[in-house]
C-alpha cells in the first residue's frame, strides 16, 4: 500500500472569477512508505501548493490525495510540514516548542518535556532546550522544527524548501543530518526544492514539474548508493539529466534570474 497517492489533482486559484488561475494541472504520483521523494521545479510550478495540499492545509480543485487509502481533508499529525522559514513559536522555549504537538494532545508538562528531550538529543539541541528561538541560528531552528515533527511520531515529513534560507555550509550539513534522521527512523519524506544538487544528493526519486501551470515533466529515479559524492560521475550524470529536462522549460515561463539560480547551485 502506498503511503501517499496523488490522483489526477488540479488546483485552480479563484475559480469562477476573472482571475481564475490554473496552478496545478492533472498531477498524479504515489509515494511508498520510507521513500525519499524530491519535487523539483522553478517558482510558480505550484510545488509548495502541492505540498500544502498533501499536508491538508489546502484542498485540490479536482482529483484526490490519499494517505493510506484515506482521502486527505484536513491536517493531521501523521503528516508534518517543515516550512522554509523556521516556524518555532517565539514565545515558547525550544523544549516547549518541540513538545507543542504533545501539549495539544493534553500531555502533562513533565511527560511531554521528557519526550521532547529525547528528540532534542537526537537533533543535537539538548543544550539549547531552555533557550528561546531568537537565540538560535537558522540551522538550529530548522533542526528544532524537525524534532518537533518527529516528537509527534509523524509518519510523513513534508519539507517545503526547508534549507533554502540557510548558508551553503549549514545547508550541506543539514542535508547530511536529514539523511541520518531519515535512515535512522524510516520516515517517508517529500521534499520540495529548486536546487538541482540538493535533489540529486537526497532523493530516491525526483518528480520534475513544469512552471505555470505545474504539470509532471518527468519522474526520475536516482539509483546511487548513499552517501553520495557530489564529484562522482553518477552525480554529474544525474545533474546533467535534470538540467537537460529543465532546459526544455527555458523558453517558457521562468525568469532569467531564477534560471541562473537553478543551474548554479553546486555546493562548493
Amino acid at each position, binding site marked *: 500500500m502506498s503511503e501517499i497517492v496523488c490522483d489526477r489533482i488540479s488546483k485552480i486559484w479563484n475559480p469562477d472569477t476573472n482571475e481564475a488561475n490554473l496552478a496545478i494541472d492533472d498531477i498524479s504520483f504515489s509515494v511508498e512508505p520510507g521513500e525519499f521523494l524530491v519535487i523539483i521545479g522553478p517558482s510558480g510550478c505550484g510545488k509548495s501548493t502541492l505540498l500544502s495540499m498533501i499536508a491538508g492545509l489546502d484542498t485540490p480543485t479536482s482529483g484526490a490525495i490519499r494517505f493510506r487509502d484515506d482521502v486527505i481533508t484536513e491536517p493531521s499529525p501523521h503528516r508534518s*510540514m517543515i516550512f522554509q522559514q523556521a516556524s518555532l513559536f517565539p514565545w515558547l522555549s525550544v523544549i516547549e516548542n518541540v513538545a507543542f504537538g504533545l501539549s495539544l494532545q493534553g500531555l502533562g508538562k513533565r511527560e511531554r518535556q521528557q519526550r521532547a528531550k529525547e528528540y532534542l538529543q537526537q537533533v543535537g539541541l539538548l543544550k539549547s532546550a531552555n533557550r528561546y528561538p531568537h537565540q538560535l541560528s537558522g540551522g*538550529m531552528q530548522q533542526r528544532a522544527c524537525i524534532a518537533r515533527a518527529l516528537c509527534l511520531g509523524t509518519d510523513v515529513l513534508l519539507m517545503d524548501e526547508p534549507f533554502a534560507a540557510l548558508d551553503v555550509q549549514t545547508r550541506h*550539513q543539514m542535508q547530511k543530518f536529514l539523511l*541520518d534522521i531519515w535512515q535512522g527512523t524510516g520516515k517517508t519524506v517529500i521534499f520540495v526544492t529548486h536546487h538541482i544538487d540538493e535533489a540529486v544528493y537526497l532523493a530516491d526519486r525526483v518528480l520534475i514539474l513544469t512552471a505555470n501551470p505545474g504539470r509532471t515533466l518527468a519522474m526520475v529515479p536516482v539509483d546511487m548508493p548513499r552517501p553520495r559524492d*557530489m564529484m562522482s560521475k553518477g552525480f554529474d550524470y544525474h545533474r546533467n539529466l535534470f538540467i537537460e529536462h529543465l532546459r526544455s522549460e527555458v523558453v517558457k515561463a521562468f525568469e532569467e534570474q531564477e534560471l541562473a539560480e537553478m543551474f548554479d547551485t553546486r555546493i562548493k
Partner: protein
Amino acid sequence: MPKLDSSIPKNMQLKSSVTPATPRTTGARGRWWQGVGTSVMWWCLSLGLFIGIWELVTALGWVNTLILPPPHEFIAEIGNQEQFLAPRIGVERTGGNFVLLTAIVATLKRVVAGLILGFIAAIGVGGLACYFKIFGKLTLPVITLLAPIAPIAWIPFAIMAFGIGDSAAIFVVFIGIFFLLTLATVNAINNVNQLYINTARVLGASRRQVMFKVILPAVIPDLFFILRINFFAAWMAVLAAEMVGVNTGLGAIVMVGRQMFNAKLMFLGMAVIGVVGYLLDVGFRQLQQRVLWWKGSAQI
C-alpha cells in the same frame, strides 16, 4: 569541497555552543551606565532650570504668588493636609497626614481597575469577533462608530448611570480603552503570521487551540503596546471625572484648590498628577518588557 565529519549533530552542537546568544560585553555595560548617568544629569538640569526660573520670577514679584505660587511653597503644602479634609478628597479618611496618599490610591485604583477590565473585555470581544465571523460582522461596525467618542464625553453619562463614586470613574476608563483596544485586537489577530497558524494546524491543533495557544500569545505584546499608548487618555479621563463629579481623588484636589482659592493646593495636585502619571508610564514600560521577554531587545 571540504570533507565534513559525518557525525553531524555533534559537530553542529559544537558550533551552536560557540554562537553567542546575546552579545553583551563589559564595554557595552559600561556605556549603559554612562548613558544612565548622562540622562539623569540632563533631567536634573532641565528640572532645575525650570524650577529656578519659576522661583526667580516669583521672588522678583513679577507675578501674583496668590495665583502662581513658587514650587517651594506649594510643595510645603503637603504638611498641611488637614485642610483637604474639609471637602472629602480621599475616599477613606485615614488620618490627617495621609489624605494625599488616599487620594492617590483612590485614583490609581480606578485607573488600574478600568484598564484591567478594558484589556480583558477587549481581548475577549475582539477574539470572539474573529472566531465567530457573524458575531464580528454584527458588532464591529458599532464599535468602529463608538470608538472615536472621547472618554471624557462619557463622563456625564457615567455619573448619571452609576452615581458619584468609583464605578463611574472605572466605567469612564473602561470605555475609554475598550473600543479602541477591541479594534486593535481584531487588527492584530488578522495580522498574525499565517506561518504560525499553519504550523499549529499541521501539528494537530483544533481551531480553538489555534486561538488560545497561538493567536493569543502572538497578539498580546502588540495589544500591550496599544494599551500603554491609550493609558494616558484613560488617565486624563479619570482625572476629569474626578474634577466634575466624582469628587474624590487627585483630580478633586485640584478642583478643591480652585474652589477654596488656594493655588498652592491646586499646584500641589497638578504636580502629584504629573509625577504619578510619569511613574505609571515607567512601570508600564517595565511590564511591557516582561511581557515581551521572548523578543530580542533589538526588536522591541
